[in-house]
C-alpha cells in the first residue's frame, strides 16, 4: 500500500449528502477480478450519459477538476454496499483524500486499507473547504497526516482526529496482514482455548 504523509492538491467539490458506493462505482464494474482500472468508471452514472459521453456539468469532467486529488463531500459519504471497488475507483482516478462531515463505517475502513485518507470535520469547516474547492484549480488544499491538519488555500488550518493505529499504518504504508501475523501466537492460543470452550464452532 502506498503511504500517505502530506498532500497538496486540487479539491473537487461534491456537495451531496449520502453519496453511496453504488454512485461511486456502479455494479456493472464490479465484475472485475483486479483492483486496478476502475478510475475511468468512478461516478459513472453521474459522469457519463446513456451513450457514454461525458456530462460536462459533472464536477470531475470540468477542466479545472480533472486532476483533483481531494474530494470534498456531504454527510454519510460512502454509505451502502461494502464494495472496496469504491476506494479502488477513487484511488485509480487519483483521489487520495476525502473530506466530509461523516462516513459510513465500512467505506471508512476500506479507505485506510488502500492509502486513502478519509478526513471527518465538522459541517461548518467542511462548508469552508467546499467553498474553497469551488474556486477551482488555483485553490489548493493541503493535508498533513502527521500533524493531523487540513489547510485551506487561504491558510486557514483545521485539525482532524484519526485513530492512532490507522494513522501509523497509513503513514508507513503498512500491510496489516503482516502486522497481524506477528501476533500468531495470540491467535493460536485463542483458538486452542475457544476449541475447548465452544467445541461446536
Amino acid at each position, binding site marked *: 500500500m502506498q503511504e500517505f504523509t502530506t498532500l497538496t492538491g486540487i479539491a473537487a467539490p461534491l456537495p451531496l449528502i449520502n453519496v453511496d458506493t453504488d454512485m461511486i462505482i456502479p455494479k456493472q464494474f464490479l465484475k472485475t477480478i483486479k483492483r486496478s482500472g476502475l478510475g475511468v468508471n468512478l461516478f459513472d452514472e453521474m459522469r457519463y450519459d446513456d451513450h457514454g459521453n461525458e456530462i460536462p456539468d459533472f464536477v470531475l469532467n470540468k477542466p479545472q477538476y480533472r486532476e483533483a486529488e481531494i474530494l470534498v463531500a456531504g454527510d454519510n459519504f460512502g454509505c451502502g454496499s461494502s464494495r472496496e471497488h469504491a476506494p479502488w475507483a477513487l484511488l485509480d482516478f487519483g483521489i487520495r483524500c476525502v473530506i466530509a462531515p461523516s462516513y459510513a463505517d465500512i467505506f471508512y475502513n476500506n479507505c485506510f486499507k488502500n492509502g486513502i485518507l478519509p478526513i471527518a470535520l465538522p459541517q461548518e469547516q467542511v462548508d469552508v473547504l467546499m467553498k474553497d474547492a469551488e474556486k477551482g484549480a488555483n485553490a489548493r488544499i493541503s493535508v498533513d497526516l502527521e500533524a493531523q491538519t487540513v489547510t485551506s488555500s487561504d491558510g486557514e488550518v483545521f485539525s482532524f482526529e484519526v485513530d492512532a493505529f490507522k494513522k501509523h499504518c497509513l503513514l508507513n504504508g503498512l500491510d496489516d*496482514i503482516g502486522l497481524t501475523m506477528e501476533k500468531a501466537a495470540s491467535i493460536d492460543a485463542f483458538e486452542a482455548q475457544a476449541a475447548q470452550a465452544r467445541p461446536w464452532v
Partner: protein
Amino acid sequence: MSPKTLYDKIWDAHVAHEAEDGTSLLYIDRHLVHEVTSPQAFEGLRMTGRTVRAPDKTIAVPDHNVPTTAGRENPENMTEDSRIQVAALDKNAKDFGIHYYPVSDIRQGIVHIVGPEQGWTLPGMTVVCGDSHTATHGAFGALAHGIGTSEVEHVLATQTLIQKKSKNMKVEITGQLRPGVTAKDITLSVIGETGTAGGTGYVIEYCGEAIRSLSMEGRMTVCNMAIEGGARAGLIAPDEKTFEYVKGRPHAPKGAQWDAAMAWWKTLYSDDDAHWDKVVTIKGEDIAPVVTWGTSPEDVLPITGVVPDPASFEGGKVEAAKRSLDYMGLTPGTPLSEVTIDTVFIGSCTNGRIEDLRAAAEIVKGKKIKDGLRAMVVPGSGLVRLQAEEEGLADIFKEAGFEWRLAGCSMCLAMNPDQLAPGERCAATSNRNFEGRQGRGGRTHLMSPAMAAAAAVTGRLTDVRELM
C-alpha cells in the same frame, strides 16, 4: 461483574489480542464468501504465498452474478465477465479447500440465506462476509457484519479482524404490530426515524415484544437492514424460536455438543442494567405499512402518505430530496397510492425466504397481476424454491402471471441480467433504492413482500390492507 450487553458478551468471547489503545484482533467463527468481493483477496494470498487459516470455517457460494433463468449451469449462458468471476470462485474454493455450494447445487442461494439455512450461523458467533448485508445473521444473536475485500483477505489469512469496539444502541419495538404490518415495515420505519447514519459507530440490538413476536425469518429481515441504518451490525438475543430454528440443521451441533452450546446460548442476552449509549423506542402499533419515495432508504413514509415537498426538510436533505424526486420522477403532494409501477421484484437477502413468499402468495392467490406489468419472484435459495414449489406457492405465482426464477441476488443489485430499464419503476422487496441500483435510471420503491404483491395486482403502490 459489571452488567453487559449482548454485544459486549459476544465481543469479549472473541478478543484474541487487545492492544493498549483498544485495537483488537477479533476472532472470526464463520467467514462467508461470494464471487464479487473475493477474487482480489484470494489473488492477494497467492501473491504473498499465504494460505486460508481455517478453511473449515470458510463457506463460499456464488450469488450476485448468477442468472436466475433455466440453463444457467452451462457457463455459456453467462456473460463473459460474470463467467470469469464465478469460475474464479469455483477455482479458489477448490484450491484453498473451503466449503462450497456451486450453482448446480440445490443448496446454492444468496449467501445470507444459505448460511442460516445450513446451520453455519449459530448464536454467539462472529460472522463476516464481504457484503454489507451480513448484518442478517445478527437475527441469531451472532455478531455479523460486512467487510471490504482487504479485510476478506485479512480474515482468510489470519481468521481475525482488526477492530475497535462499537458503541451499544438499543432499538426497542414495544407492543404488537397491526394487521398488514411486517418485519420489513419495522426495519424501514426504524431507518425512517433514525436516518441512514443514525447507527454509525454502533451495534444495534433490536428488542421488545414486537421483535420477540417475529419469526426467525422476520428477525433476519430486521437485522438485514441494520446496515441501511448505518450500524456495523444488528443483533437480536436468541430465544426458543432461535434454538428451534437451528436445531437439526446440517451444521448445527448435535448430541452432547448441542447441550453444551445451549448452556452458553442461554446466557446470550443483555443484562437488565447494561449501559446503552443510545436508545430508540417505537411503539409497534404506530408502525404502518410503508414504502420509500426517494433514493435513500431513510426516505420512508406510510403508504397513506403523499410525496413530500423538499422544502419541508432541513440542511443538505433539501437538495438531496430535490435530486431524489427528480430522479424518481415524482411530484410533491402526489398520494403515494397513485404512483403506478412497471415491475415487481420479490426476493433478495432481505425478503427471499419462505415466509416472505408465503406472505406474497397469500395476497396474489386467485388474482392476476396488472396487465403489462413485469413481475418476478426470485427465491433466496434452491431449498426455499423447492419448499415453495412443494407448498404450491410457485403455482400461485405462476398462475397470477409472475415469473418463477432460480435463486440468486438478481434484481436487488442487478449484476445479472435482471435489471430495470431507464425510467422503469419497480416495487421491490430488496434493501436499497439508490440511484441506478436496479439498473441505470431505474426507480425503486422498497416495501414488504405483501405490499409488493399488492402492487403487482393493482399496478400501483397499494395499501395491502385494502386487499386483505
